[in-house]
């Protein structure tokens, strides 16, 4: 008689989880600019950690541990997008450069450089020290 079913499920979940964690690290290392790195790293590492905590829940099979594991998963799914969005907003506001192959920047000129308030269409005066220099076309937001 081979191993039981929950052993197989735990093994598969651990494998998927570690694969996604490795993918996040490779994306963080290889992609060309901050915003792409952020996007690759946060989404796949959230999925990876969820698989690993589910593996813990399946392995122990007790109510308290399953509850705690699901709690941590819910916490990650709630906080990872919030934290990443805050870092991305701060990075865009301080002028971290985009990749030179970027074809579109919807936010260009939409942030007030003094108050950091977001407008729904481009402001009249030059706003961003980094983007205002190259913003000759008066493009729409």
């Amino acid at each position: 008689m081979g191993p039981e079913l929950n052993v197989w499920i735990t093994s598969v979940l651990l494998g998927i989880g570690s694969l996604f964690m490795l993918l996040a690290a490779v994306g963080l290392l290889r992609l060309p600019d901050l915003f792409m790195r952020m996007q690759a790293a946060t989404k796949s590492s959230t999925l990876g950690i969820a698989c690993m905590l589910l593996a813990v829940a399946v392995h122990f099979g007790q109510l308290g541990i399953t509850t705690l594991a699901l709690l941590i998963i819910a916490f990650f799914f709630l906080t990872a997008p919030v934290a990443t969005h805050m870092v991305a907003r701060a990075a865009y506001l301080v002028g971290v450069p985009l990749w030179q192959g970027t074809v579109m920047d919807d936010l260009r000129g939409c942030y007030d450089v003094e108050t950091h308030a977001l407008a729904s269409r481009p402001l009249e005066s030059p706003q961003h020290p980094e983007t205002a220099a190259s913003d000759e076309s008066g493009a729409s937001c």
Partner: protein
Amino acid sequence: MMLAEPLATMVTVTLIVLSVAMLLTFVRLVLGPSLPDRVIALDIMATQAVGIIAVYDIATHEPIFLRVATVVALITFLGTVAFAHYVERRGSQWGPN
């Protein structure tokens, strides 16, 4: 307690893969080039630490470490939000470097 066979191998493989992932993330933490890059790298490293704690739970059959994972996840979120706040407040002098 001994683990059943496919699981024992998988725990070892997972620990190795997570260590490699942490090493790659550490390279990004050292290289930068901007401060938000390093913040994100630290965030991902903490997520990988939670993963290692989860695998260690299974390896030692000791679920008490899951509480540690909870605390690590909480503290990391607070740290990242605080970093984002200060990056935004310091302005563009912190931008590319």
